[in-house]
């Protein structure tokens, strides 16, 4: 078991180092100087003042130091939780922006990921090798998983919010609502949360359902299933075993699909003007607020690594072979 975790930890540590290095290197490799952009934005007439401001920023961001020192300070700052300062909202640290936005993104992502995974697996298993159900699930599932996240969001907003007025067009809550931990405010939050959640849920649901359906079909064709059938076991039992075996790749798939779902959540937030990380990153990109973009990237990396680690532990609990293989075999 220790070996298994050690291996995983080495991979995660390497990933983190690579990601941080890329995050640090990209601005240095790219043409253009963010400090020049920053100074240019302030629009100072006097060139001497602009010059001084330029040097001030170069020193403030450590850009006048040798490269290796800059890299080292980047790591030091990172471990102090310092991701730089937003240029758009000048003195606000990037960390504050992220901390304010994260609850909204997590509120969308976590339920959407878990529920779509659960429901998709159930439906997929139900539909496999059952012609009537399969013939409706398959086209439906393929349509959903081929749909761009933001387009489903656009569709839902247009039909349910703009045309029928069933749901709000966007934002996390009514601007007039009193921010308090009270029933009216919480229900207001839930009311605004539902549509972005639904569009995330639906797209991921399609992928999981199809994945499970295909896995079950492979499992039902395997030797143990045929053997059980020959022994006269009821279909229900065979399907139960098939489901359990088909589950394992779906758990691995959960870790691998994280990146795509996060991308989906980012654009869904943009469609709904939902004030999570996606909305912040969109604002940062349109305003060239680079520190925010880099900070959110690092934050997503850390989140994905943690999620991967959780999936590893779950896999270990669910699949006894990994445990036995690690304890006995090695």
């Amino acid at each position, binding site marked *: 078991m220790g070996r298994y975790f050690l291996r995983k930890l080495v*991979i995660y540590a*390497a*990933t983190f180092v*690579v990601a941080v290095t*890329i*995050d640090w290197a*990209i601005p240095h490799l*790219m043409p253009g100087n963010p400090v020049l952009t920053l100074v240019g934005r302030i629009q100072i007439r006097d060139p001497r003042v602009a010059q001084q401001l330029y040097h001030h920023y170069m020193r403030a961001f450590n850009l006048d130091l040798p490269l290796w020192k800059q890299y080292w300070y980047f790591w030091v700052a990172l471990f102090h939780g310092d991701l730089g300062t937003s240029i758009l909202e000048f003195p606000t640290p990037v960390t504050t922006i992220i901390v304010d936005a994260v609850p909204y993104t997590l509120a969308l992502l976590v339920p959407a990921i878990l529920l779509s995974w659960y429901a998709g697996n159930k439906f997929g298993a139900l539909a496999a*090798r059952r012609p009537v159900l399969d013939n409706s699930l398959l086209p439906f599932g*393929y*349509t959903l*998983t*081929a*749909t*761009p*996240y*933001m*387009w489903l969001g*656009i*569709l839902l*907003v*247009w039909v349910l919010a*703009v045309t029928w007025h069933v749901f709000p*067009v966007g934002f996390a809550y009514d601007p007039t609502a009193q921010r308090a931990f009270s029933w009216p405010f919480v229900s207001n939050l839930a009311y605004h949360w539902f549509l972005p959640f639904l569009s995330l849920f639906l797209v*991921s649901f*399609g*992928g*999981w359902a*199809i*994945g*499970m359906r*295909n896995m079950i079909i*492979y499992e039902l*064709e395997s030797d143990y299933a045929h053997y059980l059938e020959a022994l006269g076991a009821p279909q229900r039992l065979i399907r139960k075993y098939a489901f359990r075996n088909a589950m*394992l*790749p779906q758990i*691995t*798939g959960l870790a*691998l*699909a*994280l990146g*795509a779902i*996060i*991308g989906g959540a980012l*654009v869904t937030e*943009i*469609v709904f003007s939902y004030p999570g990380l996606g909305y912040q990153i*969109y604002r940062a*990109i*349109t305003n060239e607020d*680079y520190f925010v*973009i*880099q900070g*959110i*990237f690092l934050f*997503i*990396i850390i989140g*994905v*690594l943690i999620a*991967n680690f959780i999936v590893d532990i779950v896999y270990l609990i669910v699949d006894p072979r990994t445990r036995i293989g690690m304890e006995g075999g090695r």
Partner: protein
Amino acid sequence: MSSVPTAPLASPVDPSRVEEPPIAAPTSGLRESLHFALRNKKLVFGLSMTSALLLFALIGPWIAQHPPLAYGGHLSLAPTTKNGYWFGTTLLGQDVFSQFVTGLRLAFIVGALGGGIAAIIGMVIGFTAGYRSGFVDEALNMLTNVVLVIPTFALLLVIAAYLQVRGIMMEAVFIGITSWPWAARALRAQTFSLVSRDFVDMARLSGRSSRQIIFKEIAPNMSSYLFMMFILLFGGAILIAATLDFIGLGPSNTISLGMMMQLSVQNAALQLHLWWWFLPPGLAIMALVGSLYVMNVGLDEVFNPKLREL
């Protein structure tokens, strides 16, 4: 033949459950495949839909009456037969039809180039790791795992944000070099299960070089698998590009389907009910990627007798 994942983003291949690929019978195999291919509804549907869209993307820009980015005098025009504004105009008076066909063409370019680059990298790394064991395998595995864990979409965001001038080719290349890991992993497992076969040993005994063995002995035995992998990477690249473009990181000086959606949302097309502006781009992506996926299932059924409809 082992299971090919249907959607690369949602259900990637788990190497632990790769079945032994059967060795294809050389001559009769092709005719038999063709026989089943023409009778497979999914394959025929997916292929004809993809071809129709491709034809549209090729011909469309020729028959469009207005340049995609030119501002005409007619603002927010609903679809009409007059003046060639078949898909209507945007809030600013641009021809939606012209933008749509240009975007569709770009989607095919991004898919082919991005998917192609990802397939090549995946093949090189997957074949090498599967064929050579020991240190090379370990190192390549590590690389694959690291890229697999990195949320590549977020990485693309950072890279694209820093580029001042963005081109469609650059976008495709970046998508290609970040989306290969699941393919490499799947191919490594496939290669691994073939390496110990007798015919590979024979080839080795007869003094063939490693490269010859990989390309002449191993690769042909999974040609159908490789083709399906490319289709999935193709569809995946289109979806990633659309998402990037929607965030505002699309190519400069042109228009893509994702940018059409971004601009329509930015200009309140939803509130103004300009449906002809925001419906076609998403519908096209859905139809194209969906038919690619369906085509992939059809191919899987053709090549894998176990999966054929009972």
